[in-house]
């Protein structure tokens, strides 16, 4: 007797983005093993950009599917297709294409050969996209690990640099520690609610009153701590400045954009969809995280003299702002978070593209002094950096302004006036170092820096251009993107 195996029904449109990135990664891996000669860097870059472009096309069809059929879950309800995941996937696809172009120029300049960079970047991206779509704590854990394991190696990809290997070890140990805490939290939530599925947890919590909520609170708190490590929220941020500084600059740009999008998307889903009925329990914890993250991030950035460390602390400050939308826990908060991620990702990739270019051969010139008079020597490069910095500051007519406005409005909407004021205060502190850096760009330069014009390779120039155009376009005209973010959260799975 031959037993028949029932195949699970899988809605493939939902998981196509993950399959594309995994497929591209495996394709490059096999191609590099089969090819007699070394795979050219430009080939690997083209494959990555094509994978990102294909994903953008798929997200268009996913969006149309949503319009017709609404939210879909598949693979035993563990993976979800909703507006939030579609938009987050599109953000990641854009960011990974931009980051790949920056890495291309960097690899050529530094003589880093081989397809490994893009293979690992593609695999990491697949993990990040899986996190945005995950509707089960175990799938979030898998996405997190796929994302992180690639990144640990990417940080150490330039084997000539001692500090990269050390940063990688530090990132690995703290990342593994955070993952273990996260999954222990998931185990306790499983014990408290009987499932690891986020929709089931939400349903269980909505229809039952827990007599002893200790297990649930402990589990939720541990899951939050795990996420706080990944998004570098204070007091779990210690690794971030060292890793940002030690990693090759294009990898730092990749981390700052893609990890943030993936981790925040999963965090939103856990807090708003899974534990949404218990929001009153989590709000004080999130409130403390937001206050510490915004204020400490901005304050510690002020004395920094290294551009990469400064941006690391600045990204901690931004993580605090994005957390405000999660704290609000409303549809408006979710839309604000999505808008913030959509605008922050291209801005930060373009900023790190300029840092990569300025780093010069050896990727070592990262002191703020080396930026003195940049806008006088190279007006376009200097002006681009000024626009990107002002956007991160939150200046009007850049995307940063509306992004900050949206999260603060969402906070005030949810009775968080004090929180909004503290975040504004931190933005004022952050303004001091962004403005100081901008002033340095336009300052009179000494003679010794006159000769050091940096070469801007073509692909990096494209990335910087795209970043600046997006920043200004949606800064002047945020309407369409804000509407998209609102529509996306309408389709947020309840």
């Amino acid at each position, binding site marked *: 007797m031959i037993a028949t195996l029932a195949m699970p029904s899988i809605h493939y449109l939902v998981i196509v983005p993950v399959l594309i990135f995994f497929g591209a990664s495996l394709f490059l891996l096999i191609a590099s093993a089969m090819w007699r000669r070394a795979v050219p860097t430009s080939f690997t870059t083209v494959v990555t950009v094509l994978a990102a472009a294909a994903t953008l096309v798929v997200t268009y069809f996913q969006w149309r599917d949503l319009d017709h059929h609404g939210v879909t879950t598949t693979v035993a309800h563990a993976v979800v297709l909703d507006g939030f995941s579609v938009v987050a996937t599109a953000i990641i696809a854009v960011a990974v294409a931009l980051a790949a172009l920056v890495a291309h120029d960097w690899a050529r300049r530094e003589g880093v050969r081989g397809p490994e960079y893009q293979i690992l970047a593609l695999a990491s991206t697949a993990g990040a996209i899986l996190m945005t779509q995950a509707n089960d704590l*175990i799938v979030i854990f898998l996405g997190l690990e796929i994302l992180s394991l690639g990144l640990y190696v990417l940080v150490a990809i330039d084997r000539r640099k001692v500090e990269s290997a050390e940063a990688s070890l530090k990132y690995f140990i703290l990342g593994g520690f955070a993952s273990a805490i996260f999954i*222990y939290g998931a185990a306790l939530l499983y014990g408290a609610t009987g*499932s*690891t599925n986020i929709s089931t947890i939400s349903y269980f919590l909505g229809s039952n009153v827990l007599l002893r909520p200790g297990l649930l609170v402990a589990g939720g708190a541990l899951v939050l701590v795990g996420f706080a490590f990944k998004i570098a929220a204070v007091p779990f941020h210690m690794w971030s400045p060292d890793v940002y500084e030690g990693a090759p600059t294009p990898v730092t740009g990749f981390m700052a954009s893609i990890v943030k999008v993936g981790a925040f998307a999963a965090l939103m889903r856990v807090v708003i969809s899974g534990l949404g009925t218990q929001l009153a329990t989590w709000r004080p914890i999130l409130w403390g995280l937001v206050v510490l993250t915004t204020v400490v991030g901005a304050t510690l950035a002020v004395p920094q003299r290294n551009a990469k460390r400064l941006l690391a602390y600045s990204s901690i400050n931004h993580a605090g702002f994005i957390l405000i939308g999660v704290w609000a826990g409303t549809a408006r908060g979710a839309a604000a978070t999505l808008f913030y991620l959509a605008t922050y990702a291209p801005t930060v990739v373009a900023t790190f593209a300029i840092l990569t270019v300025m780093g010069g051969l050896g990727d070592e010139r990262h002191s703020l002094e080396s930026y003195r008079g940049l806008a006088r020597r190279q007006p376009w490069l200097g002006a681009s950096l000024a626009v990107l910095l002002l956007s991160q500051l939150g200046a009007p007519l850049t995307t940063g302004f509306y992004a900050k406005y949206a999260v603060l409005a969402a906070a005030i909407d949810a009775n968080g006036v004090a929180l909004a004021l503290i975040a504004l205060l931190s933005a004022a502190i952050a303004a001091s170092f962004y403005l100081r850096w901008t002033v340095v760009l336009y300052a009179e330069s000494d003679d010794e820096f006159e000769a050091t014009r940096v070469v801007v390779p073509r692909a990096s120039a494209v990335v910087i251009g795209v970043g600046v155009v997006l920043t200004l376009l949606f800064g002047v005209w945020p309407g369409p993107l804000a509407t998209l973010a609102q529509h996306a959260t309408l389709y947020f799975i309840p």
Partner: protein
Amino acid sequence: MSVPASWYLVLAAVLFGIGAFGVLTRRSALIMFMCIELMLNAVNLTFVTFARTMSDIGGQTTVFFIMVVAAAEVTVGLGIVVAVFRRRASTSVDELSELQG
């Protein structure tokens, strides 16, 4: 003789605590690494215990995922430790002095 499920949960919590304490206090990268593995195994024990008390297969299958992830982490982690060791001939994190947190 039957052992109450809570004993297993307490044992898992203690193992997890030992692991977390080890990561935070030990200075050898390899020992820190073993402590992370200990934490993951404590999680496995927790999952299996809950799965047994609830007669739910989900928790037991989760353990396989965690074991696979732990194995993948070992591969990457040892690679990084070896890369650092080649430079330094030491796995103590105190001697990682290039970056001052």
